[in-house]
Structure formats: C-alpha cells, structure tokens
C-alpha cells in the first residue's frame, strides 16, 4: 500500500509537471490550432494528475487533499523524472520532450489498465484514451519538423540531442517500481522499453532524425534529485497555496 502510494504520487507528479510546462505555452504558441492542442494535452495531464493525487490522498488516509500533495511538498519531495521538468525551449524542444514521454506514457497506461490495483487501473483506463491522442499528435509533429525545412530539421535534431539523455530514466526502475513490478502491480519496464524503441525508431526514421549515440543517461528525478529548473516551476505552481495556506478558492 505504501508502495502503491509512492508510485501513484510519482505518476501524479509526472503528469502535473508536464501539464504545467505545457500550460506555460498557453497564448504563446506558433499556430493557434497548436495553442489549442497543447492546452488540450495539458488539460488531460492535469486531469490525470488530479485523479492520481486524489487516489494517493485516499491511500495515505491522513486527510490530505490533492492540493496539499501538489502544493505543500518541496522540490526534493517531487518524484517526476527529469525529462518532464525540462524547460519548454522552442516548439521543437517541447514537441520532442512530449514525444519521448508520450510513448512511455501510452505503453505504460495500456498495461496499467490490467493492474490488480483497481484504483490505478481505473485511472489508467481513463487516461489511456487521451494518451493515444497525445502519442499521435507528437509523432506527427516530429515527422513534420524533421521532414520539413532545413531549419526545422536542425532544430528538432538539436532538441533530440539535448533531451535524449533524459529518456533513460523513464525506464530505469526505482526500488519502488521494482517491488511493484515483482508483485505484479505494474508491468516490468523492459517490456515497455522495447515497444517504445520500436515506436520511437519508426517515427525518427520517417522524420529523418538520428538518435545520438553513446549518451550517458541522466537520472535522479524519480528519487527527488532534480534539475534546478523544477524549483522555479514550483514557486509559481505553489505560490498561492503557500501564501494563503488552508483556504478555499
């Protein structure tokens, strides 16, 4: 139960932080239609994080709310992987971050639907449909930008070069994840990884992009060792809850 709580929180943090990053685009997108699309994905992810936080709060059983969990924990207590907290950069960086995440998210939710933990399975079932849309959106943009102009190819390849080092953490299982996988509550990530590699490889090939070789994979976010970017994100995300604790809004 404590393990499921930890894991639920990790998933919640992941969706929230990525949703928050996407929400920073709102009003600043390159194309109105994509402003809408990114807001949509952000809404899905924030919605997913709310369900997860609510479930985590329920598992914890100490009367904390979704907002307590989201707003009253410091950066080192957040459990999201490093990838999702990376700054938006340009549209290409955002698309690449999304693409690397979406595949993982999609294959994970697909399996999680069958978890014996009913809470996780239910949330996964709901979010899986949304994730299917995300994975399509980001793959299309990877192809469009990779196989677009010379400039767009250069930019999206650079985004890949910069972000690839954060992809490994998604599949590097923490002790919590290992224990849950052994107990059959969550899938073993090696299976997800091979599906993801096939998906990613296919899209990159169509996009004429090259995966950088011999990259040292960064990790740490899932155990609370984040980049310095997360702290700034949290000053905004948590500001009002911190300034006026315990109020209804």
């Amino acid at each position, binding site marked *: 139960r404590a393990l499921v709580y930890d894991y639920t929180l990790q998933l919640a943090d992941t969706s929230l932080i990525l949703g928050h990053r996407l929400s920073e685009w709102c*009003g600043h997108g390159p194309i109105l*239609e*994509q402003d809408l699309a990114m*807001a949509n994905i952000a809404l899905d992810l924030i919605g997913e994080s709310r369900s997860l936080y609510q479930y985590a709060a329920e598992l914890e059983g100490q009367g904390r709310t979704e907002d307590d969990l989201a707003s009253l924990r410091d950066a080192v207590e957040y459990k999201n992987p490093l990838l999702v907290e990376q700054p938006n950069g340009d549209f290409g960086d955002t698309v690449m971050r999304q693409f690397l995440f979406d595949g993982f998210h999609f294959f994970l939710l697909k399996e999680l639907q069958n978890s014996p933990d009913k809470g996780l399975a239910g949330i996964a079932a709901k979010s899986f449909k949304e994730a299917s849309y995300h994975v399509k959106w980001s793959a299309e943009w990877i192809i469009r930008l990779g*196989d677009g102009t010379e400039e767009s190819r250069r930019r999206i390849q650079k985004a890949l070069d910069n972000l690839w080092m954060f992809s490994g953490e998604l599949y590097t299982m923490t002790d919590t994840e290992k224990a849950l996988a052994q107990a059959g509550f969550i899938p073993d990530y090696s299976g997800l990884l091979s599906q993801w590699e096939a998906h990613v490889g296919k899209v990159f090939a169509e996009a004429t992009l090259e995966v950088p070789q011999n990259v040292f994979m960064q990790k740490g976010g899932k155990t609370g060792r984040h980049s310095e970017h997360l702290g700034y994100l949290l000053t905004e995300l948590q500001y009002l809850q911190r300034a006026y604790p315990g109020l209804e809004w």
Partner: protein
Amino acid sequence: METIIEKSLEEAFEEKIAKEIRIEPKDWMPEQYRKTLVRQISQHAHSEIVGMLPEGNWITRAPSLKRKAILLSKVQDEAGHGLYLYSAAETLGTSRDQMIADLHSGKAKYSSIFNYPTLSWADIGAIGWLVDGAAIMNQVPLIRTSYGPYARAMVRVCKEESFHQRQGFEIMMSLCNGAPAQKKMAQEAFNRWWWPTLMMFGPKDAESPNTEQSMRWKIKRFTNDELRQRFVDMMVPQAEFLGLTVPDKDLKWNEAKNGYDFGDVDWEEFWNVVKGNGPCNKDRINTRVKAYEEGAWVREAALAHAQKRAAREAANQAK
C-alpha cells in the same frame, strides 16, 4: 446596365435586411457593409486572442489544481473563439495572415479591456464575472446579426461565454465567502475592473460615429449607452449579493427610470487606452508579435512538409 444591376442587388440586400434574412458569403453586399463586418469580426477575433494573455498570466499560479484546469480550459475556449471568428471573417475574403498582420502593425484594434493587467488571482474572477458579463451583453444581440457566419459563430461563443461568466462569479463567491484576505483581494480587483468594464460598451452614443449605420444594417442591435445601462442594472445587485462595494460614489437607484444612475466613465483614460497608451498595450502586442515571429519556422516547416508529402503522393499515384 451596371448601375441597374447594382441597384437591384442593393435593393435585394436591403430587403433581406428588412426581413431579417441572413446575408451569406456568396450574396452580394455593399462594400461598406463588408468592410464594417471585417473590421468588427476581426477585431472580435483579435480580442479573443489577446484576451488569452491577461488570464493566461495566472494559469501557472492558479490557487488549486481544479482552478488551474478550469482557467486553462477557459483560455483554450478563447483560442477556439478566435478560430471561429477568423474563419467567419475569412468568408468575407480576408486571410487570417492579413488580419494578424493588421493586429501586429496596430492597424486593427482589439478590445481595450485586455490592456489592463491581472495583478491578483481575484482579477481572474473579476474578468470572468465583469468582463465576460459585459462581453455577453455586447454579443448576445450579435446572434441575431445580419451576417450569417458571424451570427452562427456567436451562438457558440455566447454559450461558452456565459459558462465562463458563471465560473468567474463562482471565483468571486469563493473569495467573498473566504478569509478576510480573500475578500479584500476581491474588492480590490473589483475596484480596478469596474470602470474599465463600463468602457467596454464603447464611447457615448453621441460620440460613436459608426453606431447609426451599424444599427441600420442590423450588425448592431442596441446602442452603447443602452447596453451600458443594462449592464449596470444587472451587475449592481450581483455585487451587493457578493458583499462588494461598487467603486462609484454617484451610483444611485433611480425609481423613475427603473435603473441606476451612475457616475461618468473617465473618457480621457478610455481614449488613452484606445490610442495605445494603456498599461499593457505595448506588452500585449509585443507578446503576440514575439509568439508569431518565434513560430514562423514551425509554420514554414508544416507547409514544407505538407508540400513534400503531397508531391510524394502524386509521384506514387503516377507510378
């Protein structure tokens, strides 16, 4: 010959207007009617797009996840409204790119209300409640406007706006029923937004040059002053219900006219903001221009890719 045809076209147009039959894109219409509509619809579209910014300013700082989602969803709706409205304007023969260029150059206007900053979370409530309230009052009559595509876009816009207005009122409710700091935040925001909202109905009728023709063509259905009066009459009781004080010492119920008397808007401020001197005019346009310019490579890539793909498909079919 030509004048005769034109005259009969004009008569047909006037007849439709008189009979409240919608004008559609393929119908003949007077050049001035077309121009007025393009100006008004594109201004309306621009207002939706620029209007994303003051509210978007609080998305990352919303006080709860629920409020964050609601606000993001609202701002997203505004982007959607912008889309319908640009499409409606495009039926009149102006491209979206052209309209955006006019916005960025300052040739086209947008609602001045979005040149005021959002300084606290309560501003999000105040905008939803007051600004969307005023927008609805301006826009509901547009559902009956004579140009078909515009009227139809407004049906959806108004439906969503009234939903947004309820959400804004709800935020104000939470604040006014909350801690003293929240109530204070609400009153302070109300003080800042009340007068600019009254300005949203435009100059006084006596100083509104376009009103008469627009009314005649049934683009517009009520005068500025009429709408402003209705708005005050509607909002004052709501403010009272919230326990907020209207920042107008001249506000008084007038039994005779069955409405409120109220103080005069600061028209100097109004014209200043219209002329580009509002607190955020420069920031708003700079932000939009920056987003557009920084997105140029993405639009070019999307176009290039679509062309490549089309060429490939054509080549495949030729085989």
